[in-house]
């Protein structure tokens, strides 16, 4: 392909001019610039005192949603999250309950040394019971501390409102869009309600 040369910056193609060769004017120009920079605001965040609040799209540590209307977790211990988890960080043991949902996790454990924050557990969950929180400051002094039990994982749904709203807005929209595409092939389609499982046709 032909490249058309229209104009070349004379400074790039020529030797330095007199004042540039004399160093001093250029040096003073540079020093004036750095002096000006001294009075510009800094970019530094004083971390432990001044925390960064991530946006709702941020994938922090995965947590279980504690439904405030019932007072128990939403999780029904279906085990999909444990099944989909790429590094096998989640362990679930199901148990029966007398509540309407009939099933509950007896043990729910996430090994944070294994977790890769991919968010697959959140995506696969039919109950919207496990979501990625906005917490990112994780540190342990022992391996056993890194295994988060149900008590550490349960977070009231009010505190997770940002993430839940985000999921309703984007995750469900994406599901509906996909479902519509599927519908174009398979025939008329009824729009999905929030957070339902998509009946994907083969």
């Amino acid at each position, binding site marked *: 392909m032909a*490249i058309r040369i229209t104009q*070349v910056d004379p400074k790039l193609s*020529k030797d330095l001019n007199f004042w540039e*060769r*004399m160093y001093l004017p250029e040096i003073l120009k540079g*020093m004036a610039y750095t*002096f000006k*920079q001294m009075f510009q605001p800094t*970019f530094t965040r004083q971390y432990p005192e001044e925390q960064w609040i991530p946006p709702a799209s941020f994938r922090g540590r995965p947590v279980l949603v504690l439904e405030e209307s019932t007072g128990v977790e939403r999780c029904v211990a279906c085990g999909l999250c444990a099944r989909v988890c790429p590094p096998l960080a989640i362990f679930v043991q199901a148990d029966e309950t007398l509540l309407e949902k009939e099933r509950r996790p007896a043990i729910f454990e996430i090994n944070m040394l294994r977790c890769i924050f991919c968010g697959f557990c959140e995506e696969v969950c039919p109950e919207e019971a496990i979501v990625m929180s906005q917490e990112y400051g994780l540190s342990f002094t022992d391996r056993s501390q890194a295994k988060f039990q149900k008590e550490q994982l349960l977070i009231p749904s009010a505190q997770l409102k940002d993430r839940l709203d985000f999921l309703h807005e984007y995750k469900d929209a994406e599901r509906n869009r996909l479902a519509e595409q599927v519908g174009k092939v398979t025939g008329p389609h009824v729009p999905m309600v929030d957070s339902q499982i998509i009946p994907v046709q083969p």
Partner: protein
Amino acid sequence: MAIQQRILENGLNLSPTLTSLILMAGVLFVVLTAAAYTIWVERRVSAWIQNRVGPNRVGPAGLLQPLADVIKLVLKEDIIPVNANKAIHSAAPVISVLVAVATFAVIPVARGFVIADVNIGVLYILALTSLGVYGVTLAGWSSNSKYSLLGGLRSSAQMISYELSMGLALVAVILLSGRGDAGTTVGSLTMTQIVESQTANPLGWNLVLQFFPGFWIFFTAAFAETNRLPFDLPEAEQELVGGYHTEYSSMKFALFFVAEYINMVVSSAVLATLYLGGYQLPIGRAADQLLEAWMTTHVGHWAYTGAQITAFALKTCIFIFIFVWVRWTLPRFKYDQLMNLGWKAMLPLALLNVFLTATMVLITGGNLWAMLPFVLINAVITGGIVMVASRHNSTLSPVQRARLERRDKAKQLQPNETV
């Protein structure tokens, strides 16, 4: 030996040796503390220039950071390479620090306040700064490492190139010291007389009388002598790992590190003494005499001395700040540029400056008001000569030049052509 005498007069019956030792301990403390805080200033100012905050955790505003650094370095392992020359490897950092500190002995911080008012003050400074290169070169050689050796070699070549111009710039200052209230028309190498001859009138300071090119030559040479950017080729961390101190660790590294900053403080003090009137207050001669008389009768002479020490400290701080400011603005010179600047630009200019200053002193007889117009004339003459001399001087190598000319010619033949 003015302070020594004053201490004796005040009834403290100490032997002169002991008095000198006490003074030295005091000055050593001040210089080392100043060096430590110069490190803090450097880190804070560099942070501001780069829109950062800098060390602010240890103590208020990070002021205890130098202390924390020293503790860290003391606790680190001291490694001597197997094939290094152990004796010289250990002696080199000591030489660096010793030489850097010793220079301060001849610098007057206030009228009568100088450790050694020797009559060869300027020579003493030049001699010691020349000795400083031994620390660096020996460190580079004794480490038995390629990078260290390269750093050491660069340092020696650089020092030799810049000491000449530095010494010649000083000749002009010595020529000018035989004027004003110094009581003599003969120039002197004594630091005290150089300061006294500059008087309390800012127009009489050598910064004005030597503005172009004398001051700039000395200033540039001072950067090269302290191995600071844009002339930090002996260290050049991007190309030589750590240069001459690649193989140093723990306190030996700390000694080199602190030597660099002591050098910076001392250079700033020398610059303030030689060019910025030293301890003179910038208020004019009449006002200065009135202030001294008033303070002596109403407060005590120590107040006037304190004011002079403050003035000196502030002038030194200005230069320290400029040292830091320049370091975080300019990139490093290439080796050929460094040599070109030293030998082909600064040395001839320094010679010219000696000639012009000598002519000025000869014609005016050292009268300040008669000299001021000559300052302008000298600057114009120097500028003109520089302009003529650099007409055909190129920063490019002949090969680069030929390539550019060929490209330019090709462009002239076919502008707007497709390639």
